[in-house]
């Protein structure tokens, strides 16, 4: 059977898997971004060059440590991480979302840290000089200015997660990976190839949906004064 008629006959199933894939990634990204951005806000030093062992210096060290650990997590092969999580979360969606969340941490964290700390020194100094407290500076000045960079980190994390989510089928995770897995197990049967093909390329479609979503979010949330 050719691809077109396969899609026509199995539109419902394919859409269902696509939707699962999208949702699983969405939840993981929402969770991972919240954790990463919140953490980055907490550990952003109030000063650019803090004194040794001051609170700001310690925060900076914690931040650098978190970057190293999350970067290391990203190098762990997805199947290995999934099976390591199995005893904790069991087969299925919980393990999948947890793994995808872990993989999303680094990109968002790195971009949050970079965005928050690259805010122009003059802007920060005048914010301070006008009597803005640390929290107000962080929320009213640094976060909005860092937001485009953070959003870009979320985009990259999403692309990574869309690809990795396909592997989650191996631990009974939801999503397009199920199609690949089914096709693989039915090697030689009718439509086995189409299933693998749709499962693989479907990820690109899911990624495209996210890209459109982020373009809209960017349009709505990036302040007009810093839009390029």
């Amino acid at each position, binding site marked *: 059977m050719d691809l077109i008629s396969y899609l026509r006959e199995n539109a419902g199933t394919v859409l269902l898997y696509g939707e699962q894939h999208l949702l699983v990634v969405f939840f993981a990204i929402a969770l991972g971004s919240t954790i990463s951005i919140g953490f980055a806000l907490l550990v952003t030093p109030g000063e650019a060059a803090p004194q040794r062992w001051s609170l700001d210096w310690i925060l900076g060290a914690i931040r650098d440590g978190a970057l190293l650990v999350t970067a290391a997590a990203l190098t762990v092969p997805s199947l290995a991480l999934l099976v390591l999580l199995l005893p904790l979360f069991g087969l299925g969606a919980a393990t999948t979302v947890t793994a995808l969340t872990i993989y999303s941490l680094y990109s968002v964290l790195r971009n949050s840290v970079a965005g928050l700390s690259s805010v*122009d020194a003059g802007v920060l100094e005048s914010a301070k000089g006008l*009597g803005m407290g640390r929290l107000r500076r962080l929320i009213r000045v640094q976060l909005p200015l860092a937001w485009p960079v953070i959003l870009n980190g979320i985009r990259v994390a999403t692309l990574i997660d869309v690809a990795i989510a396909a592997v989650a089928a191996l631990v009974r995770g939801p999503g397009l990976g199920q199609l690949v897995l089914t096709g693989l197990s039915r090697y030689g049967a009718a439509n086995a190839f189409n299933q693998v093909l749709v499962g693989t390329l479907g990820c690109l479609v899911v990624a495209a949906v996210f890209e459109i979503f982020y373009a809209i979010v960017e349009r709505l949330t990036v302040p007009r004064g810093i839009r390029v």
Partner: protein
Amino acid sequence: MSRATTNPGGSADRPPDQQPMIVLEGVSKTYPGHLTPAVAEVDLAVARGSIVMLVGPSGCGKTTTLKMMNRLIEPTTGRILLDGEDVTKVNADQLRRRIGYVIQQVGLFPHFTVGQNIGVVPRMLGWERRRIRQRIDELLELVGLPPGEFRDRYPRQLSGGQQQRVGVARALAADPPVMLMDEPFGAIDPITRERLHDQFLEIQRTVRKTICFVTHDLQEAIKLGDHIAIFAAGGRIAQYDTPEMILSRPANDFVREFVGSGAAVRRLHLIALSTLALDKIATGSSATAGAHPVIEVDGSGRPVAWIRVPGVDGSPALATVPLSGSVYDAVDAMLDAHSSAVAVVDGDGRAVGALRWEALVGELQMRGRHR
């Protein structure tokens, strides 16, 4: 502005006023890990409503001194009093909302409109929305940016000079009695800077703030300051005095060298044209014989050309200078026009008198003898 309140030739150490607005007493700052202080034992008193310029080569502790006044940097030793109150005894953020702060990088918030930038401090102080709006428009008028046109723009849509004016407006927003300015015009081209200087003095005439102003440009210090504190390497004040005294009586070799050659020419900045006896001027084409220069004016009294200048052959090129300017400006205008006379005009551009080279030199000789 309070040039009148300074006392040229008066006692050197303290500006005379009832109670100084800002007082530094033996203030030092040693940065952690440094062996020598960036600012050493500085005493300084700034009179209410006056402008004090902190001048000196780069790295001599001017910025550090300024930032200690609003506690962006904490002093290692010494006391800083603001209106009689020790600044270290109050909440730093509250303190800063009562002190205007302008820096060279301007530091406008790029994601805020011009209006929102100016409204930052009033909003933190909990002003009503309507009052904030009024204040924004008022300040934009003050710094010469029509509110209708500029209020809703973003910083990146402004030129450097306009940005700096918004920076000044933002610092003035909550009407703080004190303004700290760190090389605010340092990154601006010379022509725009001249214009900003004039406007700055104009604004100060209306708002009468107590201003500490850091610059490395002696010219700027002389033009703007009521008093000048010259900083030497190592964060010490080498001389604190009026511009006049700094130029004519440098306290030590460091100041002498810093002021350098051309002190006499620089002093011309300090003589306002309004304090000179100008030649009377005759207008119209009717060349009435007499000692007065004759000038042709247009319908609204603005000079068009010289008709006759006594003691000069032919009719020299016309140069004009505003009455609010200094002798330096007049000499500059004459040299520029290759003319030995300059027409002095009032705010509306009407000729109010003339200044001739010979008369000027005579006057300066006389002043020099009297000093």
